[in-house]
């Protein structure tokens, strides 16, 4: 279990894949965490784009559009616009830390540092980086 250090939790695409895709190995874990976490979940537009793209290829456009509608209309999620102006800072973080993460994941790490909030993800590299930045702590 990951504890939140701020008022909201930032959600990575991997968590949302696991939540919506019942063939995912982390599906039950994601359902359980979604049910028990009381903080609002921040979903950036970049994460939503990644989710919809992958779901379209994996499960078809109809399912991907349903997921988009479910996510946008649910009060558990706060949609957060992707700011183009922080791209430079995200790239700097990428160059500095040199982990094999997607640009989207780096943008979440950057956001978590800025807001002092943790990221809900199952990516070990990302969790390692967040731990290094003291954004997450494991029980």
């Amino acid at each position: 279990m990951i504890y939140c250090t701020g008022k909201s939790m930032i959600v990575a695409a991997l968590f949302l894949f696991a939540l919506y895709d019942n063939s995912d190995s982390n599906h039950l874990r994601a359902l359980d965490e979604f049910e028990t976490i009381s903080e609002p979940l921040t979903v950036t537009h970049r994460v939503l784009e990644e989710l919809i793209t992958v779901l379209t290829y994996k499960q078809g456009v109809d399912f991907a559009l349903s997921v988009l509608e479910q996510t946008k209309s649910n009060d558990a999620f706060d949609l957060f616009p992707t700011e183009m102006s922080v791209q430079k800072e995200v790239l700097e973080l990428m160059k500095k830390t040199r982990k094999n993460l997607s640009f989207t994941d780096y943008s979440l790490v950057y956001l978590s540092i800025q807001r002092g909030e943790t990221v809900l993800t199952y990516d070990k590299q990302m969790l390692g980086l967040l731990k290094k930045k003291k954004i997450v702590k494991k029980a």
Partner: protein
Amino acid sequence: MVKVIGLSEDACATLKRRTRAGMSFSDVIIHEIKSKQSAKTRNKADLLDWVKSLPKPKSKKLSN
């Protein structure tokens, strides 16, 4: 109570564009947030029900 906040040029321009006659910046912000919240028609339980109602993945057929 009135609070003084700093805004970027872009944010200020956006607020000006959305301001109608007789509205203050505070009115615009409250109006925008309320309209977004009203678009949220589902809650956690709805999402869990929806996900649980999705068809289960078909188990792979073992080859002979």
